[in-house]
């Protein structure tokens, strides 16, 4: 191994909370309230964050929006290159997407390929009125024409680095670390 991995905390717990609260406000502002808004988190980090955002919105508006989760394994574009497969995660969207304002939630936005897969997956579930994207971290290096509507924090990175959102046993976000 060429040297040890250095981990730096770039966002601590209260930082994450503030970011999610801001995203919730922006989201409500942009959509002029809760009407027809649904959240869909990408497994697994995005799904945890979607739930957090829905709680923030409930505190602000006093009402809960539907939250679902989506697993994009079956929609990946690197299927051929993949080594032996792990299990497929759970997709759980118990409400119709027809005509909804879908906010897709992920933890880290990087190449955009995961989002591409998620968009395809969402479309197979129905025809939403619109899809918006909320991410906790945008680390750049897009390989597809994809842009987030709501960003917790922009973190310039190099390709050698890795950004990871750490969750605890209760699937609560703990911190965001940068590994180099």
């Amino acid at each position, binding site marked *: 191994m060429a040297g040890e991995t250095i981990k730096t905390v770039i966002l601590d717990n209260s930082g994450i909370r503030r970011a999610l609260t801001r995203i919730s406000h922006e989201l409500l502002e942009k959509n002029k309230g809760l009407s027809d808004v649904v959240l869909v988190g990408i497994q697994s980090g995005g799904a945890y964050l979607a739930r957090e955002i829905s709680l923030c919105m409930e505190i602000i508006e006093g009402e809960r929006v539907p939250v679902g989760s989506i697993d994009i394994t079956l929609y990946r574009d690197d299927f051929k290159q993949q080594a032996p497969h792990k299990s497929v995660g759970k997709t*759980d969207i118990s409400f119709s997407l027809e005509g909804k304002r879908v906010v897709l939630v992920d933890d880290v936005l990087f190449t955009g390929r995961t989002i591409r897969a998620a968009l395809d997956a969402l479309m*197979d579930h129905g025809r939403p009125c619109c899809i918006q994207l909320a991410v906790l971290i945008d680390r750049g290096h897009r390989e597809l024409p994809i842009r987030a509507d709501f960003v917790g924090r922009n973190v310039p990175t190099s390709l050698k680095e890795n950004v990871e959102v750490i969750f605890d046993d209760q699937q609560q976000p703990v911190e965001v670390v940068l590994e180099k």
Partner: protein
Amino acid sequence: MEFKHKDIIALRDLGKEEIELLISTAENMREVNSRDIKKVPTLRGKTIINLFYESSTRTRTSFEIAGKRLSADTVNIAPSNSSATKGETLADTAMNLLAMKPDIIVMRHAVSGSHYFLSKKVGCSIINAGDGAHEHPSQGLLDMLTIKDKFGRLDGLKVAMVGDITHSRVARSDIQGLTKMGSSIYLAGPPTMMPPGVERLGNVTVCNTMKEAIQDADVVIMLRIQQERQGKTLMPNTREYSRYFGLNPENVKWAKPDAMVMHPGPINRGVEMSSYVVDGNQSHILKQVENGVAVRMSMLYHVCGGGNVE
């Protein structure tokens, strides 16, 4: 856990964790089958050949649907419209099919072990859709998924299996799989249909009577009496068979009150099972069929990845 096999020929060849992986993937595959657009692009560009040397409606259709839901191109070949009737050997048929670059061959064949033979000849993935009296792994997996759906677990369950064990590939796959997952299997059937040493196949108890097997069982799996297989010497007739080894509303009560009743199909109503049980509220037979598609999607998905192992 990753799936590192190119082929799925027998549950005997798989470990507990691999079986768990196939089942858990199948659980999550079901979401695809429940929506309006029942298709995902996962196996786009893959070609699957369903090579069925024995007739089958359910299994072949299920594999075909599974392949199509994963966006693979599926082609069905049955011996009646293939070269097999022209005297071509299995190896030659396979080599010729291979020249057309399939990614997976799903085969059903009357000869036990023919998939191992095929696997040595071809480079693509092989899935066993039933070989002789050896195994029927997709049926074993879907049975386990169906049981897990009801009880949330497979360990510690008493599973009774009644019928012609000797000729049953379903029985062998169920025994192999369920034993690995921690269930106890109790077999009943005429001694003429009980193969020697079957208790050594797994956590198996051979019972003298149907009552002994079914008593307090969580699951009762009835096997098909295949008149073409049993010949003339294994039982007097279906009437007597049904009297001693058929499942009916009376003897199903020997099992636990919430016991589930299963059958791999096709059913001989009134022989191994009375219609009252087939259509009764303990029957999970159609659930088995439904789970079959998800299980086969899981198998197709995982052998494709397993084929990437160097």
